[in-house]
């Protein structure tokens, strides 16, 4: 598919001053802050966030959704959009995310590294290989030669976090950002192998963005100083 001509919205679509930003769900908190920032900087502009799994967002764009900015959680999903000829001229990686092991507060099972995840009596949960955090986990497994035997390979990282915060799993391989989000309930255990599987987040102002100028401005914000600060505060890394 692809190649449809976008036009300015009809019916209940966002109006002139509305900037639609499709962003990976893991960016929810950071982009929520950036949205406010952008709206203060650009009075009269209403930023509408469309948060979801990167692949869903990509599908929407490919099928003609009138989106201005796309921030994906993996280069693969960005590639889907680019292959359809819809991505902007450049799709820079604006941030990265790193794996960390989430364990219950106080680390009762004494998990100290990736290898401990296979310890008897430790219920481990990871992401499914199809989603970015799972792909990263798989990479670590390969690199370290440790094949995990998880109780579950969840289709999104939030589900993994929940299993740990609710006490049903002893450990989960998640992103650093997730651990920080839930620092009251979980502790993070870093492991050196994580460096082999840094996850890249590309962003682009879409080619057919209804508000190309604003879109470019938003990408600037994300990549700029304010963006970096917000991302770092949430635990994201710098590319």
């Amino acid at each position, binding site marked *: 598919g692809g190649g449809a001509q976008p036009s300015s919205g009809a019916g209940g679509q966002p109006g002139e001053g509305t900037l639609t930003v499709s962003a990976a769900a893991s960016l929810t908190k950071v982009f929520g802050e950036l949205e406010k920032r952008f709206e203060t900087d650009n009075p009269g502009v209403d930023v509408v*966030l469309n948060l979801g799994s990167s692949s869903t967002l990509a599908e929407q764009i490919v099928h003609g959704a009138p989106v201005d900015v796309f921030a994906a959680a993996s280069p693969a999903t960005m590639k889907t959009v680019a292959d359809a000829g819809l991505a902007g001229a450049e799709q820079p990686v604006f941030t990265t995310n790193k794996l960390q092991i989430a364990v219950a507060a106080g680390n009762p099972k004494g998990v100290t590294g990736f290898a401990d995840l296979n310890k008897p009596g430790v219920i481990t949960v990871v992401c499914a290989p199809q989603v970015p955090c799972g792909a990263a986990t798989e990479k670590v497994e390969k690199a370290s030669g440790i094949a995990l035997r998880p109780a579950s390979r969840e289709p999104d990282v939030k589900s993994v976090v929940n299993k740990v915060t609710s006490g049903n799993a002893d450990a989960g391989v998640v992103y650093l950002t997730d651990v920080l989000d839930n620092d009251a309930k979980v502790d993070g255990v870093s492991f050196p192998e994580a460096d082999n599987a840094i996850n890249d987040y590309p962003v682009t102002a879409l080619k057919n963005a209804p508000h190309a100028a604003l879109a470019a401005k938003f990408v600037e914000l994300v990549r700029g100083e304010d963006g970096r600060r917000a991302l770092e505060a949430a635990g994201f890394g710098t590319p």
Partner: protein
Amino acid sequence: MIPGAPVRDRHVVGVGLPRVLWVPALVGLALIALPVVGLVVRADLARFPELVTGGAALSALGLSLRTAAVSTLLCLLFGGPLAAVLARSGAPGLRLIRPIVLLPLVLPPVVGGLALLYTVGRTGFGGRVLELWFGITVPFTTAAVVLAQTFVSMPFLVVSLEGALRTAGERYESVAATLGASPATVFRRVTLPLVLPGVGSGLVLAFARALGEFGATIAFAGSLQGTTQTLPLLVYQVREVDVDGAVALSLVLVVVAVLVIAVARPRAAEGLG
């Protein structure tokens, strides 16, 4: 009591239920109620006011109620006749059509949303027609939410109403015809009133399903605050950063839905007082 009879003699003694039924019934009820109780116990009730009065929550709740109501209406308008045709028309080939109605039931909602995107999206056939002829783009509009909800909810209305139509029987309809009532009159004045409890059940199911709809909506309509972000989508989004908040929010949804249904249902499902 005769089907549909709304007036009940207070002297009538029901046959009574076998006592043993109460045991599985209570287990069933517990199965449904206990997890929700667990949820309520766990929820941070102090945060309720803050959450509910938040702009996003209010706007999402309003959108949810509005779209679910419209979807339910559409289900009734299109699904009602479909159920009648399935239950009553002797048209050949109907046996082959019936399974089609079940498709949205088994299709994972997200895939249902993709199906809508493929069909009514800008690049789909239907979408291109709509855009060329009427200048309408459906995805990312409130209309898309309604469409997604209608798609997933319609089978609930159709299947339960069809069941009721089959149970109700046709003898009263024949009587009406001999009194000169055209099929349309028979349908309006005899068939429908007699299956009101079935219609009621169907509407409740469809409304509830529409209200809780998530997968198809997020895939087809996106999650834009004020336009397409219904409460379940908001819950999803909040969950990314704050699970407890998400739980509290969904309890709001539950309370509102149960209230709406409890207010609307007695009339629809238990005859016209």
